[in-house]
Every structure is written in C-alpha cells, then in structure tokens.
C-alpha cells in the first residue's frame, strides 16, 4: 500500500471512530425508555431514570384543563391491564390530537 492511501485510510478511520463515539454518546445522553403504565407502577424507580415515555390510553372523563395556567390533568390506563392507572399532570397547551381513549 502506498503511503498516501495509508494516510487517507487513517484519516477515514478517525472519522468513523468519531462518528461511532457520537452515536454512542447520543444514545446514552438522549435515549428514552419506552414503558407501559403497569411497569412503572410496579417499579416507580423507573420514572427516575433519565427519560421515560409511557404508553397507555387516556381514561375518558378524567380530563381537566385549566386554560389560564395551561395545566392539563388526566389519568392514563395500561393498554393491557386496564385496571392499572396513573395520574398525569401536563403543563402547556393541550395538543390538538389529545382526547380520551387514544
């Protein structure tokens, strides 16, 4: 192998290593766990992990919204074990797509 292509190869390797590091760091810094309501209820320490996205359905009739303070409160139930629920407080504008049973 010629000297120049060796140099090019090293430069490429460095770039790839950099990309690898970036991706790993990206995952560990910004990754968010995807949990169900019942998982969180069983082990509430899961909520203290860096970020959690919880999947569940909004229980009908539990939605209250304070437009002055932009505070939305509702109850989420587990998709499979429907008797398991948790209360959610959301600060901000109610999203268009937000509704019961979705």
């Amino acid at each position, binding site marked *: 192998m*010629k000297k*120049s*292509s060796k*140099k*090019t190869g090293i*430069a*490429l390797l460095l*770039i*790839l290593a950099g*990309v690898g590091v*970036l*991706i790993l*760091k*990206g*995952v560990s*810094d*910004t*990754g*968010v*766990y*995807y949990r169900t309501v019942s998982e969180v209820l069983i082990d509430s320490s899961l909520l203290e992990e860096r970020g959690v*996205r919880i999947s569940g359905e909004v229980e009908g009739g539990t939605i209250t919204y304070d*437009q*002055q303070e*932009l505070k939305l409160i509702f109850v989420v139930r587990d998709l499979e074990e429907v008797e398991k629920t948790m209360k959610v407080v959301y600060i*901000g*504008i*109610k*999203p*268009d*797509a937000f*509704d019961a049973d979705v």
Partner: protein
Amino acid sequence: MVTLGNLSQSAAFMCSLLAMVLLLTGLMRNDLRFIEAGRRALTGVAVFASMAAFSLARLFMTDNFQVEYVASYSDRALPIFYKATSFWAGQKGSLLFWAWVLSIHVAMVAFNTRKETTRKNTPYIYLVLAAIVSFFFLLLITVSSPFEPLAYVPKDGNGLNPMLQNPGMIFHPPTLFLGYIGFTIPFAYAIASLISGKVDPDWLKKTRRWNILSWIFLTIGIILGGQWAYVELGWGGFWAWDPVENASFIPWLISTAFIHTSIIQERRNIMKVWNMSLIVLTFLTCIFGTYLVRSGILQSVHDFGATGLGGYFLVFMIVTAVGSIILIAESYGDLRTAHSLESLVSRESTFLFNNVILLAIAFSTFFGTIFPLISEVITGNKLTVGEPFFNMVNTPLFLLLLAITGLCPLISWRKASINNLKQNFMYPFGLASAGGGVMFGFGIREFYPLMAFTLSLFVSATIVLEFIGGARARKKLTGEPILLAFPKVIWKLRRRYGGYIVHFGVVLVVVGITGSTAFKLEKETTLQRGEVMNIGDYTLQYKDFNSFQDRNRTVYAATIGVVKDGKAMGDMFTERRYYINAKQPTTEVSVRMSLKEDLYLTMPMIGKNDEITIKAAVNPLLVWGWIGGTFMVVGGIMAIIPSRRRRLAV
C-alpha cells in the same frame, strides 16, 4: 370502472410477466426478435397501468363509495382537486400510483433504448425493470387492490383527513414518489451491467440524468414536506426527525454521495465498486422508505398503519440486497481499479471524505430510526431516541460536510501543492475568519451557530471565487468583456456551475435552519379580547373573533393586529377548523414572512367568552431555507440540460 381497474391491473401484471418470459427466451436463444417483443411488452405494462390509474381517478371523481378505498379517503363535500389527490392519500392508492409511475419510467427507458437492443446489457436492463414492476403489480392484485368493493354502498365516504386537505398534498407526495421511483432506473442499469459482465462506466453516463433528476424530485419532495409541516401542522417546525422523514432523507444522502463519486469514476475511472454499492444502497433505502410506511413497525405521522405488506417488502429488500452483493462480489475482479488515490490532499480525496460523512449521517439517521427495534432485540427494553439524538449526532457531521464543500473546489485534482493551497485559501479563509469575528462581536457566541455561519461564509466565498475565476479564464481565452464572459462560461460549463449553485443553495438552507433553530423566540399566552402580548420586536393585539361555516368545515378565526417597533404592520388571521368528518380540530397557521424573520402565529385553544390562547414564534432567517431549496433545484436542473442539440438525421 371497478372492473376496468381490476382488469387493467391484472393485465399490467401479466404483461410484465410476459415481458420477463420473452426476454429470458430471447437471452437463452440469443434471438433479438424475442428481446424486441419483450421491450414492447414493457411498454404495454405502462398502457395497462395508466388505464388502472385512470379508473381509480374516475372512481374518486364520481364518488363511487362502493369501492372501499374511495369510501375511506373521500366524501361528497370534498373539493374536486382534493378528490384527485385522495388517489395517493392511502396505502393502496399510493401503491398503484407508485406502480403506475414506475411503469411509465420503464416505458420511457424502453423507448430511449429502442435502437440499443443489440447491446449486451440492454436485455438485462429490461429484465430487472420487468421484475421490479411485476413485484408491485403482484402486490396490487393479490393483497392490496385499491379496487376492492365493500359489501354495501355507504351514503357518503369517510372524507380526507383535514391535515391532507392542503395544497402541499398536491405536490409533496408525487414529487417524493418520483424521486424514489426514478432511482430504479440507474439501479437497473447497474445490475444489468453486473450481470452482463459489461462493467465499463457506460451505465454511469447513461443514467447520470436519471440520477440527478430523481435527486431533484427527492429534494423538492423533502422541501415541500418541510414547508407543509411548517404552514399546516402548526407546531412551528419544519423537520422533526420522524421515521418517515428520515426514510426520505437517507436515500437523499446516499444519492448525493453517489452523484459526487460518479464524477470521480467518470474522470479518473476509480471507485467502481463503491459507486455500484451506492446505487444499490440508494435503491434499497428508497424501498425501505415505502416499507416503513406500510409495515407499521414504527410509529410515525406518515404511517398507514400495519397493512400486511411489510413482509413482502422485507423479502423484496432481502432478495435485492443479497442478489446485489453476490453480483458485486462476482465482478469484483473486473471492477477493481488500476489506479488509486494519489494523495491525501487532492480533489478526489475530498470527494471521498464527503462521501464518508454523507454516509455517516445516513447511517446515524438510519440507526436512530430503527433504534427502538434494535434495543428491544438486544436488551429487551424498548429504548427510543428522538430529535435530540439526531441533532446531537448529525449537527457536527453537517458542519464538517459544509467545511468540505468549501474546501473541495480549492484543492486541485490528483495532488495539491502547498503553493496552490496557499493561493486558493487566502481569500475565502480570510473573509470567513473576519466574518466570524464580526458575528462573534455582535453576540453570536454559541459554538455551533457561529461555526455554521462562518462556514457558510467560507463556502460562499469559494463559490464566488470559482465563478470569477471561470469568467476571467474565458475572458483571457476569447477576449470577450468580463460581463459577457461571465454568463457564457456558466452556460457552457453548466454541469459544473449547476453543481456550485446547488452548493450555494445548501449554504442558504444551513443559514435558514441555523437562524430559525438557534435564535427562535417562542411564547404562549392566553388573551381576552383587546389584550396584547409582546414577542421580540412585535406587539400583538387580539382584536376580533369570528366563526363561520365553510363547505365541509366550521371555522373559528381570530384577528390579531401586529405592531412592530411602534409601527402598525396590519392584521393577521389565525384559525381553528372543525371538519365535519374529523374528530380532531386543525390549526390554521398565520405566517408573516420576511427576509429577516418570520412571525408565526397559531391559536391552539379557544376558551369561554372568546378567550383564546395564542402561540407566537419569531423564526429568524427561515425564509432563506426555502430560497436555498429553490437554488438547489435550479442548480440541479442546470446540470442536466443536455449540452448539444441533437439534430435529426437527414
């Protein structure tokens, strides 16, 4: 019409099968008559496909709700041109649209190559295309027919999702599709040259225009999608790293890489394996895009949900990937090149680095998109990554790419000398550092935005130098005055200068994105009639509230008076619309665009006594992103205008 649609679909499928049989027979018997017949059968596919497409359009126009697909995506009250666009609003219709457009592309290839059937690789091109077309029609006639009837005839249809009732719907999906579909042609040429063992760069030359044209369509599609999101969806952004957005971005990145290295292969006859792999990858990621939307494996705003088609596309992708790898491996000996890169600092190597970074961005985007699936398989926990991940990983890569865009034209082919570097770098580098310093002085202190602006300046400077240099050289050569030499040299070398114009477009897009993300102002306030809110230099007064009935929707509109620096700027109107057939309301955005910044208003909430919540945002420089997109498209078009008028033979 239903019968005609069904029959035409089946006929198109049969015709593509027939083409394959004829071509194979022709190849085995070495008989040109069969090849020619196969070529004609391919044209026949387009005829039948067009009839099927016409039938579906006609069913929408005549409100034939017995057809399940029509009933699901249209209703009587729908304005007529949205009825036309409902064609591709759902999974099945969009699949027919895909197959139809593809078959027309194929017919165009068949026509263009009508005098080249004796060439060794032409029958294989036809064969690959016929196989791909037949795959799509197979899906249409077996599992995903848009002509499926309902057991009863509903009084009215379900209507089109209000978010899709937007002019964006007319152009965004078809242009993206044209992009995706167009790459099938270069892919077929590449595979054909592998099978026939004719691995000269001929396929690259023949498909250069197809490539760039598809790239242009993909670019338009992505930009229109961003614009649509910005003016219609009302969350104030234009890009969310949604899985399906990513799925369109990945082939864009790879095809961009391919367009660059194909220049190298043309000039220096190196990187043959690399280019082969890139076009295969481009095609595969295009199919991956449509797989993602149709499989329901990831959640996305563009999703059609689980449609039962995922498995078919998966098999198709695996067969394509494995087949391509085997073919490339088999011809590896022929593809290997005598030359290699001569120097780390050369024009060629900047192309190589640009490729590596483009592919790195493509990879990280792909990785982030399918990450939930990977993490679930490996760790059992579903871990997802979102916008922060993509921004964190891709921003530095984009900046690096931008730097290379600027460096590339400054470095000569083969091996750059120190003197040559010094001379070329002086001005752009000086200008960019000075500009960076000034921006720093004006308070732009964050690293990424500062770098983005400085590099934009650097790249612009190199482009300007390149234009001036070209004009000067022509003046010297021809003695023309510089003002005449300037446009002439651009026109004469439009392939090259078209490329630079695309680069300049990219710079403007970077400026738009940086300005509007790093310096965005946002504020939400609930207002009573007459109250005011402030954002940036603007004072917004809630003046009036109206509601009225409009065709298929009820509209609530607020009038907001805008005052900037004490000067009245007129009124803006933002609306919430409730469509008859939709459960969720939609937000109608109001934007005041200017070269300096956009004022962006939405009304996410309406309360009692006409109390409203206004979400206001100031997005600096965003307009330059759209302008830059236009430059990219114009530059691309310039690069493919044929260089010589072909005269008719006498």
